[in-house]
């Protein structure tokens, strides 16, 4: 969900950039030297995960997995996802430059919220319970991201309102898929590496 340059009004772009800078600063503060490699490798993993196409009916969707990023990274999801968006814009022409801030905010803020709310729930109980909470977290993050994208469009002008609504409803299947995949990913992680979620966010 990359908004392009020129679509949003100036206050939205500037507000988004300021908020994203704040989030990135928070994230960098939470990263000490020992956690930089983990955050960096995870950031690369989420970049690669966004290349995975999952079939849905006759079409397919690509994964965003920002909920999972928030669960594993906490506030560090902000700089990690920002780096991914920057690389996508510069080397693949995806997204835009002045909208980097608002795009980061729309993807990373739901990630951080999902991490804050769900990471503790995922660590407790049986792996299946953890997986269900993981699924809820994954769905929440995508729903919030879509909602924020729609909201930033709607804030920029009433003319975007119909498109914004449609974007939100068109993404409901994506939310379901992200929820299922995040759930299974958490299930596997809980079984294979149980200590992963116990100490909370890795970085």
């Amino acid at each position, binding site marked *: 969900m*990359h908004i*392009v*340059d*020129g*679509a949003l009004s100036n206050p939205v772009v500037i507000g988004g950039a300021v908020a994203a800078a704040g989030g*990135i600063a928070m994230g*960098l503060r939470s*990263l000490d*030297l*020992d956690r*930089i*490699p*983990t*955050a*960096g*490798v*995870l*950031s*690369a*993993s989420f*970049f*690669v*995960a*966004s*290349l*995975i196409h*999952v*079939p849905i009916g006759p079409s397919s969707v*690509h*994964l965003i*997995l920002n909920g999972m990023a928030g669960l594993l990274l906490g506030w560090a999801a902000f700089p*990690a996802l920002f*780096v991914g968006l920057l*690389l996508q*814009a*510069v*080397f*693949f*022409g*995806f997204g*835009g*430059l*002045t909208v980097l801030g608002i795009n980061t905010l729309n993807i990373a803020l739901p990630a951080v919220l999902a991490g804050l709310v769900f990471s503790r729930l995922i660590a407790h109980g049986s792996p299946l319970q953890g997986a269900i909470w993981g699924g809820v977290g994954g769905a929440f993050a995508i729903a919030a991201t879509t909602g924020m994208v729609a909201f930033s469009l709607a804030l920029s002008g009433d003319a*975007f309102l*119909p*498109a914004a609504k449609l*974007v939100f409803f068109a993404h409901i299947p994506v939310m379901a*898929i992200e929820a*299922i*995949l*995040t759930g*299974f990913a*958490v*299930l*596997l*992680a809980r079984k*294979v*590496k149980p200590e*992963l979620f116990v100490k909370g966010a*890795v970085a």
Partner: protein
Amino acid sequence: MAHVLGQHENTLVKAGAQRHGAINPLDPRMRIVMAVVFAVVTVAASSLTALCAALAVSLSLLAASRLPWRKTLKRMAMMDGFILFMLVLLPFSMPGDPMFTLWGFPASWQGFWKAVEIALTANAVILSLMVLVGTMEPVTLGHALHRLRCPEKLVHLLMFTIRYIEVLREEYLRLRAAMKVRGFRPATNWHTYRSFGYLVGMMLVRAIERSERILDAMKCRGFSGRMLLLQDFALTRKDFVFAAGLGALCAGLIILDLA
């Protein structure tokens, strides 16, 4: 975003690293700064003449860079499905003078021109970004951002991401190949979603274990968090000529927009 990359195309390895063309010898720092200046000026412009001129500037930068035309323009035009959708919807959602009616829905000229305006801005900015910054080696981008006083930890994170994207992508392809060998064929069913979920989970677990090994290796070599930069950047006359030229064009765009 995978549709941007072909099946066999490397993610970042082949990106950047342009060896010839007029853009390559320029200082990376200057290229980043000028790309930002150009983007801000273009986004601020609103008249169609100014935006067409901005796109013309981007196209001439592309010509100077000697990047392959077709591939670059294809990437430039690539947008999220929903943004395209929004552009198509704009004439119908914006009130104004009627242009035509489709199934009883009136389309307006105002909405149409707004959509054209957004498309021109988006393409002009992303093309200039790809030509000016995307032609660098990814690692050079990290060094240049560091020299431009980006937070050191953010640059570290960027460098790690650049380094490991290709490694992890190869791991992903290995896992996919293993699934294929066992007869996995993706479809819309529970089995597919469970397999993809496990795939993602496995990739993340392996990534974290890999990062632990990386940290150990770095500590073993006395990593203290300081950036050691192998490249020294120096501004030359060429860079100032380039900056002055592009700066003048940006000023011209502003004047064109106000006129």
